[in-house]
């Protein structure tokens, strides 16, 4: 009995270690920090070059778009701290002045280069499974 218990114990230990290591390594590649604008603005140096999700609000009047292109430039802010952001692609309708956005991308010294933009609706959804508008 104890022999069997030992076998089971060792097997599960090995399996757990293997999965743990695998999980740890794969997590490292796909992890993204989730930060608010004001948390990032103070310490740009720490975050430059890291994969990041930034949560903030669009500064009214800051949205600029190239004519006939899908290139956007805008500012996002939270608690008085602002940051410049760039995004190329189609934006959701809820992306407008003051809307709450989550940007995914990389921080550079020119500003935040977003490759994904999710905007939450100003009048918040609270219906059963009402999803926010994904890009």
């Amino acid at each position, binding site marked *: 009995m104890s022999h069997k218990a030992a076998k089971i114990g060792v097997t599960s230990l090995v399996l757990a270690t293997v999965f743990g290591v695998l999980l740890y390594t794969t997590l490292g590649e796909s*992890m993204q920090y*989730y930060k608010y604008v004001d948390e990032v603005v103070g310490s740009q140096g720490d975050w430059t070059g890291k994969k990041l999700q930034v949560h903030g609000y669009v500064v009214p009047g800051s949205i600029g778009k190239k004519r006939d292109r899908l290139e956007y430039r805008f500012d996002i802010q939270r608690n008085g701290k602002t940051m410049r952001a760039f995004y190329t692609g189609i934006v959701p*309708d809820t992306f407008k002045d003051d809307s709450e956005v989550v940007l995914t991308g990389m921080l550079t010294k020119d500003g935040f280069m977003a490759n994904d933009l*999710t905007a939450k609706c*100003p009048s918040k*959804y609270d219906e059963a*499974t009402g*999803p926010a508008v*994904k890009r």
Partner: protein
Amino acid sequence: MSSLGYYLLLAAFVVGAYATAISVAGARRRSRPLIESGIGAFYLLAAIMTAASSVIVYAFLTGDYSIRYVQRYSDSAQPLFYKLTSYWGGLDGSIMFWVFLLSIFGSAAIYVNRERHRELIPYVVAIISGVEMFFLLLMVVHNNPFETYLTQNPTDGAGLNPLLQNFYMVIHPPTMYLGFVGLTIPYAFGMAALITGYLDDSWLRAVRRWTMFAWLFLSIGLGLGMIWAYEELGWGGYWMWDPVENAGLLPWFTATAFLHSVMVQERRGMLRVWNVSLVIVTFFLTLFGTFMTRSGIVQSVHSFGQDPVLTRMFTVFMVSMLIFSFGFVIYRMPLLRARNELDSWLSREAAFLFNNWILLFCALFVLFATMFPTLSEAITGERITVGPPFFNQWMIPIGLTLLLLTGIGPLLAWRKSTIVNLRDQFLFPTLCGLLIGGGTIALGVRLWSSGLCFAFGGFVVGTITQEFWRGARVRQQTTGTDLFTALIGLVGRNKRRYGGYIIHVAIVLLFLGFAGGGFKHEESALLKPGEEVRIGDYVIRHDSLAVTDDGRKQMVTANMTVLRNGVELTKLYPARWFFRKHEDQPTTEVAIRRSIAEDLYVVMPQFDASQQSANVEITVNPLVNWVWIGFGLLAFGTLIALLPETAFAFAIGRVPDAARTATASLLLLAIVLPAAVQAQDGSSGRTNKTAMQRDIEGKVICMCGSSGCVRSPLNNCPMRPACHGYDGQTAQLQKLLNEGKGQDDILTAFVKEYGTAVLAIPRGGFNSLSWLLPYGLAGLGLLILVVTARRWSTQPAAAAAGNADMTVDPTIDARLDDELRDLD
């Protein structure tokens, strides 16, 4: 009205408390009257919940906007259908709907089992009532759907979220709830068995069918959610590992595991602790899924508000449920000892065990990854998120392993497989797999995951074909019928097994669709009228942009032409709809060109009406339709497994010749019928003329200025009355109507004259009901088949007098059973 509803909920809570208490007391004292009283109270609860549901539905129908819930989720302009279904449009109503379903479902389960499992019933009643009480308490103290406005009653409602005004979204939640609710029944029986100590396999037999039933609804619910996401959300896919989606998937994994491991316990008396734990975990996950998505503990693109009260109540309930359940498991451990040991790793049991581990691992992994942001914040203080790539990285290899096991399991013998029967069993399926795999490589597929998926799929299909073939051959030899009848008889003899194989084929189809996702490509562009964009073999030309209005919403529709090799394939009409009162949340109406090989999926997230330009996102989704077909087949297979014992009796032996032919033709009909219907839909009948005329006027663009550049429908043309287009077209419409033409003919005539630009609302496309119709009819066909089968089977003696089949005597039957068992 609202107070009536509220008192009904209170009454339900009290009755639930009574049912719980009296059942436990009755069981402990072994008092029949007390137990009966508990069952009675349980039925009464169902009646009260039905009444309460009627009250809220009535409030929705009459537009009683003094009730907050009604005000928030409906308005007077909503069609009747959506008014009814607003019942489960929000959280409070969902909870009530949940309790309602659980009370009905539970009553049915208790009614069916009340004699057969007499010892278990009082505790089953107590457990289900206890669960109902929790949700009722939630409503009474926190989420009361009957809450009213204190001061001023609004005159109209806010309206249901436009995204939810979709056919699939209407039927998706109730199917999902049926699945969740259904999984409460096995939990209740499992717990009753633990409490009473009657831990033989009788509780398993009682819940087997219910679990399958719940599993069916859970699967269909997941499928409908995927279709909804694909057709309504317009991001080009159907699954992105969002917490809300994962919540439904978690119990699906463990319920699937349970359905497999049940067989091991029935057959070999093993895995008893495992099975009862799986049932508990599954029930826990249904609760946890609800909790996760409703309490705001996990951030999701589905932004639910934080709700600390709900969080606290759910946490208390879940923790006490886990302690209670696993406490009993530990207490009953001595009774749960396995009757057998695992003989060999090369056995069916071992395959099932692997399958279970993997499914459980899936559930744990998805749970972990979904909760990761919350966990990381709790531990490190930093909120760190993981995206869909992380899920895919893990789930693709796991899924492939599972697929492979689907093929291996049935090939292994119970107890122990010998080398000889391994070779015998694996030869054909392996060849199939290699053939498909080789073909895939030859065709130039260089994606390892999809390539492997195809090969494994081939292997599984090979396995199942071999199983059906061998079984049918054996049966044919012993009964002396033709192969086809033998096949039906075989399935009838062991519906669960062969229904299961059909489900496996469905799983292969699902994987086929998933594998196609690996070859998906996307393109986005800003197009002015006349401009084109190329994607794959397709060229998509933007022709024009139309703005129309149907009273409830404003619709902006792009007219696009799809060409392949310079030949026009079809027209597509991606649109954006702006519902009244929800103008800031327009819905994206996706245009899809479906085909078995691939879907061309076009959405228009943005447009510029002044320039008539449209921003489009185009996705080519290879093989995606196989996912939906897979779900259809999965439902079919589950229904076969669920059929009552007598359903196939006609095929098990004594069949008159005529009946056999008739069966074959009926079956063929059932297969062909949906296709015929698919071809027919779209042709609608004629209706009241004036109404129809108005209707058509709304559907036809006024062509004033020859090109219809104003793009308004006839009945709304701003150029009237001095508009030559209007006069000409209305006259023409009147003439066609007088000739007695139907709407479709008229629209066709208009299109012939002016081109498709004349249509304000493109034809086809948005009618989701028609898409579901074939499945409904297939179900109907099956029903007819079953009914006929039953009728034949009840009077075989008269019909088959003197028939050669009568010579099939019990000994042959027994031999067949033996031989079938050998194949197991």
